[in-house]
C-alpha cells in the first residue's frame, strides 16, 4: 500500500478560490446594478386634527395664529404674499423670512414637536402650485445659518381649501 506522506516543501491542500470569486463578483454586479442614488429627503410635520365645530371658549387673542395669504395668478404661479391681512411682501420670500425672524425670533420653542409656540395658518388659492406652498413653509418655519437651522414657527396649519 502506498502511503502519502508530506514531503518537505508541500504547502498542504490549497482552497479552490475560483468558485467563491465567481459568486462574489456576481453579488457585486447585482448590487451595482440595483444601486440607485436617491436624493436626501426630509419632512415638514403638520399636526392638523379636524376642526371641532363645537363652540369652545373664545381664543386668547395673543394665541391667534399668524395668517399667511398666498395669491396665485392664472398659471398657478405666486402673485402675492400677505401676512396678517396687512403686510404685503410681493413675491419675496426673503423679506417674509426677515419679518418672521423679527416677529418670532427667539420665541420659538427649542424642542421640536413640543406643540408649543406660535402657529401659522396658510391660506392659499386653490390653483397655487405646491412648490410655492413649500417655499412658504420653508420661509416661515426656519432659517439656515451655515449648517445650522434656526427654527421659527413649529406649528403649521392650512385654512380650508378655497374652491375656484
Amino acid at each position, binding site marked *: 500500500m502506498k502511503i502519502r506522506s508530506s514531503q518537505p516543501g508541500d504547502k498542504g491542500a490549497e482552497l479552490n478560490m475560483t468558485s467563491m470569486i465567481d459568486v462574489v463578483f456576481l453579488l457585486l454586479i447585482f448590487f451595482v446594478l440595483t444601486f440607485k442614488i436617491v436624493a436626501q*429627503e426630509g419632512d415638514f410635520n*403638520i399636526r392638523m386634527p379636524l376642526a371641532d365645530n363645537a363652540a369652545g371658549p373664545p381664543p386668547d387673542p395673543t394665541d391667534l395664529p399668524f395668517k399667511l395669504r398666498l395669491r396665485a395668478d392664472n398659471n398657478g404661479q405666486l402673485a402675492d404674499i400677505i401676512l396678517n391681512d396687512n403686510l404685503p411682501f410681493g413675491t419675496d420670500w426673503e423679506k417674509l423670512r426677515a419679518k418672521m425672524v423679527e416677529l418670532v425670533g427667539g420665541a420659538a420653542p427649542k424642542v421640536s414637536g413640543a406643540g408649543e409656540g406660535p402657529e401659522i395658518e396658510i391660506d392659499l*388659492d386653490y*390653483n397655487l402650485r405646491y412648490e410655492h406652498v413649500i417655499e412658504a413653509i420653508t420661509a416661515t418655519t426656519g432659517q439656515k445659518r451655515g449648517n445650522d437651522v434656526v427654527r421659527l414657527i413649529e406649528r403649521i396649519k392650512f385654512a380650508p*381649501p378655497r374652491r375656484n
Partner: protein
Amino acid sequence: MTSMIDMVFQLIAFFTVLINFSQDEQNDRVRLPESELARPAESPLESPITLHLISDNSIELGGVPTTIDGIGVLLNVELQLLKTKGKTAADANIIIRADRNMSGGRVQDLIKKCQEMGFEKFALRVKELGA
C-alpha cells in the same frame, strides 16, 4: 489575491448597507419640491402611510392608483390594519409626496379627506435643495 478579495468584500458590504428594496417610499413620476430646510427624519415615523400625488392628478397608495374620492377605500384598509395592531388613525403618520407642479388646493383636499377619516399627523415630504 487577498487584497483583491478584501476590496471586493468591502464593496459588497457598502452596497448591501445602502441598498433599498422599498418601493413604497419611491415614485419616479413624482418630482418633489425642494427646500433648504429638508433634513432626513432622526427616527422613522410611526405607522407611516405614504401617498403619492402625481402631476396627472392621480394618487397612489402602496402602488395602487386611485383618486381623491377613491382614497377612502384604500385608507379604510389601512385603518383595519392599524386596528389589528391596536392603533388608531390618530397614531398614524400620513406622508404626502406631492409633485411640485400639483396645485396646492389638491393637497389640501387630500389632507381634508384624511382628516375626515380621523388622521391627524401629516408629513409633507420634500427634497433637499441642490441634491
